[in-house]
């Protein structure tokens, strides 16, 4: 018999400490102001204004994130707003990362829109909403907030996938992304409901406290809930066997949007995944570790092998990012603080790699954003030495070459796996990395080989950018700055990794 009549209680509003969610507020507020200002002018405002505004908003949220970082470093981690927001090294790392992605993205979006002749504020406003969602996912201490963050992150991305109205494939990508995204959100939500039923709370810390005090007898509901939460996250990060949407979506979306999507969706989803499993389910590690073991083996090997046979570079990069997701999971699977630090470092540097890679692929795609066969890149190094060299650096870094950020990232996650005594997993990951080197180097080889691609990408790029002050490079100053930003992160922290490693290490120390 049910006796539960919920007693009427006076409504107590929690104290809201606005500084703890300042980066999110800056992104959302900036987005609203941007939309409002653009609506006041009948013909809209120039692209330069929008792009500079987004860079400024991103910089403001970066400063707010660093202020929070200072707070955490000085006073330790704490929770705010009725314990639903965590402010710790972990959340601050992701706030910083998302702010950086928001700063870099408009450089590429500006160049892309200039070439395609697109107008409008949407391509600049939507990423701000997505960024705020990713930030909420990273700092949430409550499953409801993680779910809301997930949706705030995803819904603008569905729209961005379908922004290119001229190509039918863009609409198709949007629809596939939407259906699969909504499907995974619904699975995640049901997992949330079952977890709530089994533990009596949606707060991550309370779930963990309940599980450490009580032995759940016959914990089928709890395991089902945890499993469905995991499936929801694996969908978002495109891990095998929940990856099937990602090649189509990556290929069909406007290339610049693909880069942003790959960076921000991975950042947000990995932040929430790591936090939920480390903060709420540490006592159930013996249940989720074997699941992740299987997923990692499938993800790394499948991603690497299928990428080998791709002809379209965007599809190839989609499978390559599936492979990379497996590596990031490797750190979580080890369930040690060293492994978590390695995963955080990996997510951080991968965001810049993938943004830069897709930016150059977008430029090579020529006007219309349609030339994406790998063979079309033949002779690219001769016609565009700067772009080709940059792309080569991004690709070999993803392959894990020394003196780039990718090397240390791979080394750290594999070391973490070895230290956790998962030798088989470490060997499988290394084998997949060796296979992956094949398809990264293939692109580099094609670019630096003689001859011209069937429809050499660059002819149309030249006409568009010949007016720019950087005429010799044939690319717009916006694009140049963006690529240099991504490159400097990749190369600088490849040679001098200590600050970033410390940042990631700090993140796991302050993380409860």
């Amino acid at each position: 018999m049910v006796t539960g009549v919920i007693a009427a209680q006076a409504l107590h509003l929690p104290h809201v400490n606005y500084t703890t969610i300042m980066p999110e507020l800056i992104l959302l507020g900036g987005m609203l102001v941007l939309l409002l200002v653009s609506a006041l002018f009948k013909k809209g405002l120039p692209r330069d204004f929008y792009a500079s505004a987004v860079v400024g908003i991103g910089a403001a949220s970066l400063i707010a994130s660093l202020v929070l970082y200072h707070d955490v470093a000085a006073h330790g981690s704490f929770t705010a707003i009725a314990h639903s927001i965590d402010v710790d090294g972990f959340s601050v790392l992701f706030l910083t990362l998302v702010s950086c992605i928001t700063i870099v993205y408009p450089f590429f979006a500006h160049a892309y829109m200039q070439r395609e002749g697109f107008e409008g504020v949407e391509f600049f406003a939507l990423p701000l909403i997505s960024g705020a969602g990713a930030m909420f996912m990273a700092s949430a201490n409550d499953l409801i907030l993680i779910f809301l963050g997930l949706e705030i992150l995803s819904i603008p991305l569905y729209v961005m996938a379908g922004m290119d109205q001229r190509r039918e494939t863009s609409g198709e990508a949007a629809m596939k992304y939407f259906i699969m995204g909504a499907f995974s959100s619904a699975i995640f939500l049901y997992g949330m409901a079952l977890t709530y039923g089994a533990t009596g709370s949606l707060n991550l810390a309370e779930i963990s406290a309940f599980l450490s005090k009580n032995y759940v007898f016959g914990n089928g509901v709890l395991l089902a809930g945890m499993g469905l939460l995991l499936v929801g996250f694996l969908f978002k990060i495109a891990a095998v066997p929940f990856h099937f949407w990602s090649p189509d979506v990556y290929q069909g979306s406007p290339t610049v949007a693909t880069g942003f999507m790959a960076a921000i969706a991975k950042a947000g989803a990995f932040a929430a995944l790591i936090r939920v499993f480390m903060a709420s389910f540490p006592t159930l590690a013996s249940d989720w570790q074997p699941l992740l073991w299987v997923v990692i083996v499938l993800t790394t090997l499948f991603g690497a092998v299928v990428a080998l046979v791709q002809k379209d570079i965007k599809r190839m990069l989609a499978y390559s990012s599936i492979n990379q997701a497996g590596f990031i999971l490797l750190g979580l699977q080890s369930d040690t603080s060293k492994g978590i630090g390695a995963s955080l470092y990996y997510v951080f540097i991968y965001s810049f790699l993938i943004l830069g890679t897709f930016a150059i692929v977008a430029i090579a795609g020529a006007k219309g954003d349609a030339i994406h066969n790998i063979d079309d890149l033949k002779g690219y190094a001769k016609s565009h030495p700067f772009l080709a060299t940059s792309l080569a650096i991004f690709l070999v870094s993803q392959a894990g070459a020394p003196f780039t950020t990718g090397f240390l990232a791979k080394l750290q996650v594999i070391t973490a796996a070895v230290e956790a005594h998962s030798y088989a997993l470490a060997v499988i990951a290394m084998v997949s990395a060796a296979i992956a080197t094949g398809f990264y180097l293939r692109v580099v080889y094609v670019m630096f080989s003689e001859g011209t691609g069937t429809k050499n990408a660059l002819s149309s790029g030249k006409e568009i950018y010949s007016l720019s002050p950087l005429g010799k490079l044939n690319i717009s100053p916006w694009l140049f700055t963006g690529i240099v930003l991504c490159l400097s992160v990749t190369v600088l922290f490849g040679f001098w990794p200590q600050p970033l490693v410390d940042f990631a290490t700090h993140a796991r120390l302050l993380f409860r």
Partner: protein
Amino acid sequence: MSIAPSWYLTLSAVLFSIGVIGLLIRRNVLVMLMCIELMLNAANLTFVTYSRALNDISGQAAVFFVLVVAAAEVVVGLGIIVAIFRRKAEATADDVHLLKE
């Protein structure tokens, strides 16, 4: 006389399964959208049932957030569907098949 919570939980599990199966086997995009709604509402029913059984308000609060999210999702989803199928006679997922290897 009141009905035991397990009945509601079973019902929501059945509704959720119908949603999953429907999404996987039906080809009409609008029906797929309805299946997603069914899955979200099954989760809502689970939330409300547990909220009552545990005598805890946060499950009911979650439902309000889910309703808002579901509405936002439908707005964007229908927008995308309209944008694609303006040029086509029928809204079936099989018509959308350009992206293959």
